[in-house]
């Protein structure tokens, strides 16, 4: 009863179109997340990454709405559209996109105001994600798992209200994956923020997701608990 009186952490309906050369790719997605981690599941090329970009405000959405808790980030019908740099949505892309001209500490502190407060905060995050020994390292010298942690620290530094992760474990080796999964789950839980995670790996979906949405050819075709969706083939 109490749950239904709280607005869902994330409630979105999106209709968008991207042009790839001469052809258009249409994505129609419907997402509902009461709380916790939402997994976007499906093979590659079905529109999962595009959905993430739309949630972050980095793609033009033609119709629909995006509501984060009780705040509306986007509503086509009412003409509301909060620009990307004001949405406070953390984004960790598939390639991590670390700034090659900055070291790890500078990367993490990128979105923070200059000065002591920013430096202290970056340091705290670097410690939390157990990469303190890499603070002055260069992004190109890091392994896949280390880069993921830096990207994650950078996204969390600006205190986002929603975290978006695109195939976060893809570039990590088997060993690192387990510990990274634990780290991600922990940081999200500690902050109490919702997260949307894209993966094509069934075991990952099962391990990380509280809720799941299945994609096929640009549309969300099923939603529910990961276990149930994965079993029903």
């Amino acid at each position: 009863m109490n749950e239904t009186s709280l607005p869902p952490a994330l409630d979105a309906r999106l209709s968008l179109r991207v042009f790839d050369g001469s052809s258009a790719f249409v994505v129609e997605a419907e997402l509902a997340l009461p709380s916790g981690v939402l997994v976007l599941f499906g093979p590659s090329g079905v529109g999962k990454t595009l959905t993430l970009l739309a949630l972050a405000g980095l793609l033009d959405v033609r119709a629909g709405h995006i509501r984060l808790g009780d705040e509306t980030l986007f509503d086509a019908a009412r003409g509301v559209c909060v620009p990307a740099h004001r949405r406070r949505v953390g984004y960790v892309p598939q390639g991590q996109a670390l700034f090659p001209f900055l070291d790890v500490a500078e990367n993490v502190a990128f979105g923070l105001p200059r000065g002591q407060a920013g430096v202290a905060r970056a340091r705290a995050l670097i410690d939390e994600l157990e990469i303190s020994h890499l603070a002055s390292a260069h992004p190109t010298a890091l392994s896949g798992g280390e880069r993921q942690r830096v990207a994650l620290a950078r996204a969390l530094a600006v205190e986002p209200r929603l975290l978006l992760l695109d195939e976060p474990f893809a570039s990590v080796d088997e060993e690192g994956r387990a510990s990274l999964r634990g780290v991600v789950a922990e940081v999200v839980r500690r902050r109490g923020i919702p997260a949307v995670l894209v993966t094509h790996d069934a075991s990952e979906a099962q391990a990380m997701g509280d809720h799941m949405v299945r994609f096929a050819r640009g549309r969300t075709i099923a939603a529910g608990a990961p276990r149930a969706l994965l079993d029903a083939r």
Partner: protein
Amino acid sequence: MTADDVFPVVLSLRVSVAALAVIAPVGVTLAVVQARARYPLRRLVDALIFLPLILPPSVVGFFLIVVFGREGPIGSVLDAFGMRLAFTPAAAVIASAVVAFPILVKTAQPAIEAVPAELEAVARTLGLSPLEVLARVTLPCAWRGIVAALVLGFARALGEFGATLMFAGNIPGRTNTMPLEIFSSYQTGDDARAALYVGVLTAVSFGVVFAANSAPRMLAR
């Protein structure tokens, strides 16, 4: 070496630096716009930017004098305010700026396009406005290409002849830049004087290119 001999050297350098000062901010901005923005007339603007590069310099010179000459549409307006452009050092600056502009834009543009869009996307989610993204991500990534664009633009401005000859004239002591002076000296049979400026121009060009190649290494963290 008399003051007369030194004058074309100083004039050429001043004209080229002034031309670069004008086209650098405009050109880099336009390169960013053309690289990132998508707007209806984009292709047309692209072609217009490219135009002075493929037009023969004498055609450029002709257009400049027709438009900015005393009886031209813009020149007559300036004349009313007592501003004369043709046959002044300012005209040499304009001629150099016009012909160097396309090279600057066309060299800077690919460097900006090469900046991964993902980096700019992440920067936006971290709270940076589009202008901040430009200053803190795009330009730091593309700076090598931009430096190359400035160097090439400067070199083209320094070597400009045809349009300058028509618009600024070849007036000794006023608008005789080194390329023009080389021509005049050769014409009047003073090969030694021509060779002097050929030497200076070659040395300056080498120096500029060498500096541009070494700068990235010296300035890199």
